[in-house]
């Protein structure tokens, strides 16, 4: 099953169970249904599926209006860029609501955007800066990167009291979904997942770089190098202690962050470690921006696996 099919399955399972639920967004139940993300949604009779108007700002406001009136809703969005139009509500409306005890109800509001990160979008429509949205008003955000975190996050967060944004990667839609064999650690907030425990190097993946981190781990394993693999599912800083504890043991860290933001989350981790952890090898992989970065180009984050393996191997010997 591919990434998209699995997420679609999880969404369908969850929305079918809830009473008085409103699902809305442009074309969520028409045409390609957001490339298949919302295909085949079924809700109870007292719920609604709305193929909405093209009014992103007001759709965000509407979700909050439903929330303070004890109705849960999900706003599915074709691409994260559109959410720029709703920032007023993410900040001002959400701040008012969460500061007023009377308005904290049991209702849920989730914005579920597709992060268009598959390149060739040109100067617009490639706003792969999920963390910036969450940072702007300390909003809970979650990235979906594999089968395990998809199950945990969608089952527990998609319809749950409060507001959050759950992002999925368009780049991964057609890829076979990664199924980690086992999970070593998951924090209570589902913002940090640890998939392997190894003594040689710590790998930390941010944004939607988990597939690259997973591949890195497998390649290192083939060379007999044991890794501790983390994925940070929150696009904003979390409690880093678990990761720092691992780096204290391995002394080596590979960080991957494919966000386009100038304020990437991995920098917060690296800043936290600075001076407090003795590191013999630090490899940071981020997107590179050259003069063509606004053009329609393949702007994927490049990973030179062989070079990294060499670097880690040399130090390991």
């Amino acid at each position: 099953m591919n990434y998209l099919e699995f997420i679609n399955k999880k969404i369908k399972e969850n929305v079918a169970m809830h009473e008085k639920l409103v699902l809305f967004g442009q074309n969520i139940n028409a045409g390609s249904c957001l490339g298949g993300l919302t295909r085949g949604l079924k809700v109870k009779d007292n719920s609604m599926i709305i193929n909405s108007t093209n009014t992103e700002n007001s759709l965000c406001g509407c979700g909050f209006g439903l929330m303070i009136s004890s109705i849960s809703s999900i706003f599915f969005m074709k691409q994260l860029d559109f959410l720029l139009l709703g920032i007023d509500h993410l900040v001002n409306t959400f701040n008012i609501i969460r500061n007023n005890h009377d308005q904290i109800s049991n209702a849920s509001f989730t914005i579920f955007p597709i992060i268009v990160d598959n390149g060739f979008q040109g100067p617009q429509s490639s706003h792969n800066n999920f963390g910036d949205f969450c940072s702007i008003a300390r909003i809970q955000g979650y990235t979906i990167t594999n089968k395990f975190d998809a199950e945990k996050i969608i089952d527990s967060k998609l319809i749950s009291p409060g507001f959050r944004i759950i992002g999925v990667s368009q780049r991964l839609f057609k890829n076979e979904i990664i199924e980690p064999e086992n999970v070593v650690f998951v924090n209570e907030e589902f913002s940090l997942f640890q998939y392997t425990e190894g003594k040689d190097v710590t790998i930390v993946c941010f944004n939607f770089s988990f597939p690259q981190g997973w591949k890195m781990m497998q390649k290192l394993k083939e060379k007999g190098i044991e890794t501790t693999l983390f994925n940070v599912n929150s696009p904003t800083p979390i409690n880093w202690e678990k990761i720092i504890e691992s780096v204290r043991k391995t002394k080596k860290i590979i960080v991957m962050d494919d966000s386009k933001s100038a304020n990437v989350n991995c920098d917060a981790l690296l800043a936290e470690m600075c001076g407090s952890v003795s590191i013999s090898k630090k490899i940071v992989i981020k997107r590179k921006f050259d003069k063509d970065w606004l053009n329609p180009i393949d702007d994927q984050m490049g990973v030179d696996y062989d070079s990294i393996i060499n670097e880690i191997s040399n130090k390991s010997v």
Partner: protein
Amino acid sequence: MENMNKQIGFDIIKIRISQMVINELYKDGKFKIPIHLAFGHETIAISLDRIMEKEDKILLSHRNIAYNLARGKNLKKILDEYYLKKEGVGEGKLGSMNLMNTSKGIIYTSSILGNNFSVAVGVALAQKIHSIKGITIVLGGDGSMEEGSFHESLLMAKSLKLPCFIIIENNEWSMSTSINQRRCNVDLEKLTSAYGIKYCKLSGNNPIKYIEELKKLREYAVNNYEPVCIEFDVTTLGDWIMKHDDYPNGKYINYHAGPAPTIELKTCPAIIKTSEQDPVYALKELLDESEIIEMSEKIRAEIDSELI
């Protein structure tokens, strides 16, 4: 009918004098927060309060004081909120520009122009899903109808068949610029007609007329699952002429926020302007001047004892 008129008149004057009390405290520098007084909005506030039923909800803007006084009927709790005390209506967490009172149906208040229209769409949709025969009322000014969210919300309210009032309090000013200084004229009736939305314009500050009309519109909206756009002609009182060397004839200052320097707490009657633009002056259509004076004195005494 006469008693009803008297009570309505009494309530309008009470909102006026309550605001005058706030204004005096404001002039004395008692508040740290910004406050937008609503002298001139008293009749609209009382009229909406009168037509609201138990399940109805109202969403306000930064200029919300008249509505909070009309619904909450408690100046002390509002003052405590302005002093940011825990005893305040919002436990000192809301201040003025976001002041709301959910127990009285004031479910949301926004200081961002046009922000509350779309939240109202969600509230109205929730009422529909809950099968509540109520109405959602949202207020903005002639400045907020310039925002894209106003148009988006009209579109959504009509498309989703939501019983709601989208009210524009047209005072012709957005901070320091009048409509003719900042934009072309917008015929709101034609604009709403383009969306297929019923429109009504109310002016003159006659509360009996306002209440009658609003009741009819409420029934229409609830029974037909339709939004209604209502435009009120309103004058936000408190303008003044600033003396300045650069302006030999003085400079006209429209009241927007802060204390209104030329408005003073008068014992009776609490009239600011001798025209129907002033809701208290307009009460002369319903009440004798002696009644207005008598009510003003009584209200003043009531407020004095409430605030001791």
